[in-house]
């Protein structure tokens, strides 16, 4: 379990991270979202023991990041936003180097290296020079080096940036696999769609403050003020908008073409069912009636433009 406790970082008079708090469980894939300069990298570097917090700390399974950095280092895998690989060595030598640094016994190293290469789908590149790998492969190699010591926590800073859609999809699959292996995975991004579909927890950071945190659905729910229901009819009925407008809990309606109407609705599910019944009773032939999932992107925009709080 990772507990972040009032983590704060000042650069002179600039407050880069302003006392953020959250907790994650094994298997959690945490999407850490914020625009550029929001404080994601600073937070991740503090968790990776690379930066000393001005105040606060974090604990991984009870081990304190500030008090016991060496012990923490053994338990985390960190992938920075910009990283350099030694390009003058072979892929397996690169992993061998990190396996040695992480005190993987010499006897087990070849097996460990084969395993992480397998996991990151780089087995065929084992004897290739690092310099010859594509950007996506280098990204995966860096992830592979994070895994040689079987860490409990993975800190991935903007791992998807600069990848083509295919490489990005592969990376997502890999990260999901790590979650299934019971690791805590922290993935940051400034582009929301990158994360929305495979994280089970998200946090939105803006100017050093954690504005929202929780399971994706909950964050969406708390931020969302009204749900949107999309209703499609069999026949054109432009007056349906007027018909719904005055009904209970309906705050707004929009016609989307002649057969579809979007209703902003503030009532409960019970009220929702009532409204459907009412429509049908009034002779409208409803072919589709569904709650539109407000996506994270809307939430993100609302939060970061100050629409919330």
């Amino acid at each position, binding site marked *: 379990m990772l507990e972040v406790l009032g983590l704060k970082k000042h650069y002179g008079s600039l407050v880069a991270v302003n006392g953020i708090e959250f907790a994650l469980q094994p298997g959690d894939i945490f999407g850490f979202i914020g625009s550029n300069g929001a404080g994601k990298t600073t937070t991740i570097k503090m968790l990776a023991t690379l930066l000393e917090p001005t105040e606060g700390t974090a604990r991984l399974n009870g081990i304190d990041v500030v008090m016991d950095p060496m012990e923490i280092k053994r338990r985390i895998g960190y992938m920075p936003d910009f990283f350099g690989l030694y390009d003058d060595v072979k892929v397996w030598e690169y992993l061998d*180097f990190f396996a040695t*640094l992480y005190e993987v016994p010499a006897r087990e190293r070849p097996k460990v290296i084969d395993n992480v290469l397998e996991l990151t789908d780089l087995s065929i590149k084992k004897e290739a020079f690092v310099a010859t790998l594509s950007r996506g492969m280098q990204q995966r190699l*860096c992830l592979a080096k994070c895994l040689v010591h079987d860490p409990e926590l993975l800190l991935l800073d903007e791992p998807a940036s600069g990848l083509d859609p295919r490489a990005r999809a592969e990376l997502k699959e890999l990260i999901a696999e790590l979650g299934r292996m019971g690791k805590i995975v922290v993935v940051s991004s400034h582009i929301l769609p990158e994360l929305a579909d495979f994280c089970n927890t998200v946090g939105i950071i803006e100017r050093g403050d954690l504005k929202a945190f929780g399971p994706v659905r909950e964050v969406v729910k708390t931020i969302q003020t009204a749900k949107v229901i999309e209703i499609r009819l069999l026949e054109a009925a432009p007056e349906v908008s007027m018909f719904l407008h005055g009904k209970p809990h309906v705050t707004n309606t929009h016609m989307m073409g002649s057969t579809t109407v979007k209703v902003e609705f503030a009532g409960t599910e019970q009220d929702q069912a009532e409204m459907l019944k009412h429509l049908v009773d009034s002779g409208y032939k409803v072919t589709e009636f569904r709650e539109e999932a407000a996506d994270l992107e809307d939430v993100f925009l609302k939060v970061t433009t100050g629409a919330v709080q």
Partner: protein
Amino acid sequence: MAVADWWRTQKRVYFGNASSVRDYRAQLRGTRPALFWTLYLGLLILFVTLAYANVVVQGEQSITVIQTQLQSFYQSVLGMLELMVALVAPVVVGMSIQAEVQRKSLELVSTAPVSPKYFLVGKVLSGYRYVLMLLFLSLPIAAAAVMLGGATWGEVLVSYLLVAMHGLFYIGISLPIAVISTKVVPAVIYSYMACWAWAFGSAIPVASTLFMSGMAPRGSHVEAPFYMLMFPGAFYLGVDSYTTVFGNQIPNWIIATAVTLIIVKFFIVGAGSVMTRIGSKETVSLRIHGLIVTAILTAAYSLTLLAGRGTSITPGSFSTFDPAHELATFFAVLSIPIVFVLPHISTWSYMDERKHKPSGFFDVRQVLSGTPEGGLPYILLVLATMYTVGGGIWLYNGATIDVNTMIYLAWLTGAWVFFWSMGWLVSSFAQSGIGTARKSHLAFTVIVTLLPWPVLGIVGSILDIPSDDIFRVYPVAGLFFDSTEIWTVAFLALEFWIIALWLTYWAEKRRKSVVSLMQRATNERKPA
């Protein structure tokens, strides 16, 4: 168990060091290394052919003439090796570390559970491989010199060991520079500057050493200061010299090697400390190593000086000197290396990392932690170590310590407190820790070198005062003139202490106002 753990750690750092293994794999690859070593071998062969042709070309000559010429041939081989090492060693480590910083691979290593020492030792080992290769490839030539009668095997082995030590020393010097620098080019330039300043600057003590040893012929078994062997300029003259330590003749190459290793360790710990946070194991270790190095250098240097005057120092043999002044000069010379660390110890800053923020100006509990308030206590502790060890050895050898000695020591201590207070004051006018250290270095240079000679000289000539009188009131000058007038020394000591106290008072007033400014700024930022 503790011993086993310690051994395991040492083994991990020095044998099979991952950094070194990784670099080794890269070093062996590609055409560039092969090209480099081929070029080197070619140069060696060319050089030897030319040098040897010079020796034999002159036809019929007496054996002794040829002998001398062969010896000078051997010396030029050593000189060339020394030059190659001085060209290669200062940059190998700096470039390798800076390359890691530039390509951002150092960050990945920093999140691995290894100490900075592990990483630095790895870099030293992989850089040192180049130096050893240089020496190894030239061995056949040295062997030729032995066969031809220009040198003996013993001489060759000791000389090679010493050149290897010089290379290690250059690597040591360049290590903290590489860690402090942010770019490759400055790292390389400053490393060359530092190493060559050492190589050329050492010509001065070597010259006086030659004088002291009575210009004994090369390789003769004579008593000479061990540090002669650490200086690249003329070490080969003293390969068989020794130092008498409590009645035993210890070969100088042993002492020089040991001292080199200790100083290089000190540089490694120093670079490690730069890479870590305040109060880290590395910083504490650096400060302890500083004390150990101080003690060892003091002991080695005082034994050398005493040995230079013959094996038994009786109070009588001091009668022609002023022992107090002698001892004070000895300490003054010994304390000069403080110059290099003082700007970093005496400065503080509120702008950057917590590393430089002081919570006072003197706190004995912080003496080893590296915080600014531990700076002055640490300088005093270094001086105390020096006085205790040096004074002890001199006392043991029959020197006496009297009131005059105490006055000299008050002057010297005052000098360093004064320079510390200057750094403390400069800090209140600067922004960042490193910037402060630079400004403090500059102020130091101005006060010690620029001010006394040109400025005071001009002032003297304008006011028509003899320059001796001007220097007499200039406290820093106490070191440079040979006046044994104890009242002058007492006056200069007092001058130093008063100025130091006043500067400290002023600096503290400024520091406190900076603190309250910073606090106000922090409060304003907090939401109501």
